[in-house]
């Protein structure tokens, strides 16, 4: 059965205080829901997105042939996160370029496009905004919050900011903070964007241009770090596009160059430069242990949820060791936690791909959630939120 997705938006008038001390008002969040909220509203699952994703998690838009949902392998009818049982919510974060209020929108305080003035948003701010979306949908407690990479950070943050509002957290290919190497990659990407002559200090919209060169390079750097050396070698090796060395430093010679340029071009066509800066900063800033002198065990003491953590052996950007740090902190706090270290060749990207063991573990975990008392008594459908569809 095909899952049909309908984008929706929720408008918020009350100002949202941000971690930086700034606040944002008159903002909207784009979201999609899949499946049906049960009578006691206990089967909701919130999906948090990673760097360049959106609220469009799964399914097709009416008339569309193929799903462009970024987690279509994971979410849908009969999928590991089964929308026949769960009411799944995909939400687009503040500052994004996919529908939620972001740098290209008008600031109600000034009447001008935010551009470079869009406030810096953090993972904690996003979680607060998501909590307000749940309020709007009438959902007091989530069966689970789930996310990969930056989405996993949001899931972790949920367990600390709103420990009573979720029963499970599924944290995939993530980390309790970025390493210096990771921040370094983000910085290279940001410098590529801000030094693009078309960037205009972030106010490029007014100039009718887009810093595409910067975005291309940012994406190329990012893309390299999401793959593993083995996968890249297997896919491209040292293959030459035209079979012979051309002795040029300007043109594409190796297949990998062609691939990276293609990925960079594609990205620069649809992604907003200011959004990229904001989101990579949110990644850099995330560090729940900052208030506990770097002690993650103390930082995670507030969590009440049950956890499933998943990492991938060849992921060097969010390595298994980083997931084990979170596992250790949860063990120290006597929390319920399971951890699967998936032997997958694909690097960080593996969390979006179809690895059978990975999908089976998540499926088994969600089957357990579905069989818990909080979800077993009330299969009756009652007053759906507007626009909720299967």
């Amino acid at each position, binding site marked *: 059965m095909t899952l049909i997705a309908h984008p929706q938006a929720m408008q918020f008038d009350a100002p949202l205080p941000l971690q930086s001390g700034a606040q944002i008002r008159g903002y909207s969040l784009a979201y999609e829901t899949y499946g049906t909220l049960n009578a006691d509203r206990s089967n909701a699952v919130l999906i948090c997105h990673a760097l360049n994703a959106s609220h469009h998690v799964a399914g097709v838009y009416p008339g569309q042939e193929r799903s462009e949902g970024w987690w279509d392998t994971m979410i849908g009818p009969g999928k590991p996160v089964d929308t026949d049982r769960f009411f799944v919510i995909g939400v687009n974060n503040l500052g994004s370029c996919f529908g939620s209020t972001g740098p290209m929108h008008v600031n109600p305080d000034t009447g001008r496009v935010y551009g470079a003035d869009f406030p810096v948003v953090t993972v904690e701010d996003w979680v607060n905004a998501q909590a307000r979306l749940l309020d709007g949908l009438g959902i007091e407690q989530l069966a689970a919050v789930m996310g990969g990479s930056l989405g996993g950070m949001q899931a972790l943050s949920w367990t600390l900011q709103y420990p009573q509002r979720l029963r499970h957290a599924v944290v995939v290919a993530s980390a309790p903070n970025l390493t210096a190497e990771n921040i370094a990659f983000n910085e290279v990407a940001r410098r590529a964007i801000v030094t693009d002559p078309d960037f205009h200090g972030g106010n490029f919209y007014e100039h009718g241009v887009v810093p595409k060169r910067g975005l291309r390079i940012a994406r190329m750097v990012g893309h390299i770090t999401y793959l593993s050396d083995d996968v890249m070698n297997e896919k491209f090796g040292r293959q030459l596009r035209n079979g012979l060395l051309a002795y040029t430093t300007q043109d594409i010679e190796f297949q990998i160059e062609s691939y990276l340029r293609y990925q960079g071009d594609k990205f620069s066509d649809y992604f907003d430069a200011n959004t990229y800066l904001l989101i990579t900063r949110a990644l850099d800033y995330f560090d729940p242990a900052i208030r506990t002198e770097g002690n993650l065990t103390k930082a995670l003491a507030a969590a009440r949820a049950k956890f499933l953590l998943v990492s991938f052996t060849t992921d060097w950007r969010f390595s298994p060791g980083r997931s084990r740090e979170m596992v250790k902190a949860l063990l120290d706090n*006597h929390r319920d936690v399971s951890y699967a270290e998936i032997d997958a060749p694909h690097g960080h990207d593996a969390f979006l791909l179809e690895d059978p063991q990975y999908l089976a573990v998540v499926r088994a975990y969600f089957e357990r959630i579905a069989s818990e008392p909080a979800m077993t008594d009330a299969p009756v459908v009652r007053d759906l939120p507007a626009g909720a569809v299967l």
Partner: protein
Amino acid sequence: MTDRATLKIIADLVPQGSRVLDLGCGDGALLDFLQRERGCSGYGIEIADENVLACVKRGVNVIQLNLDQGLKIFEDDSFDVILQIDTLQHLRNAETMLRETARVGKLGIVAFPNFAHWPNRLSIVRGRMPVTKRLPYQWYDTPNIRVGTFKDFEVLATRNRLSILDAFGLQDGEVRRVLPNLTASTAVFKFERG
């Protein structure tokens, strides 16, 4: 080793309500039993994908780790009981793991195939490595890289200053306390730091 009688005998060694760490927990059957029948809580450690999946299906906490990399993820004295049921014989660093067990848990329970069981002795006398129900592998393909006896473990435990609180043999789901080194295919030890 997962038949119900054996499960019950091992579980009886675990105090009610204990916080348990099961090293090499397999499909999680013992932990599941301890949670349901004896009010225990805890975690299993497993390396095999299919076992990790089986544990998640059962609703048992499982951490996928390679025990040969040690137990540094666990703090001193952080568990009431550490179980090593049919695990020790697969570990390269069996002695280190035993010491780690005593560090992390207040109580250790170990079970492993007793190589001195009489059919094994008979096989050796006949000049061949034993292949039995309990040790079903040929010498060249066995995953049991540490073969020891009931008596050997007593020596190793003493050497590491562990006090043995209880020790017996297991044969066909029954406890053997008379001549366990000769009459039982499985050796079981309960110990604490000396």
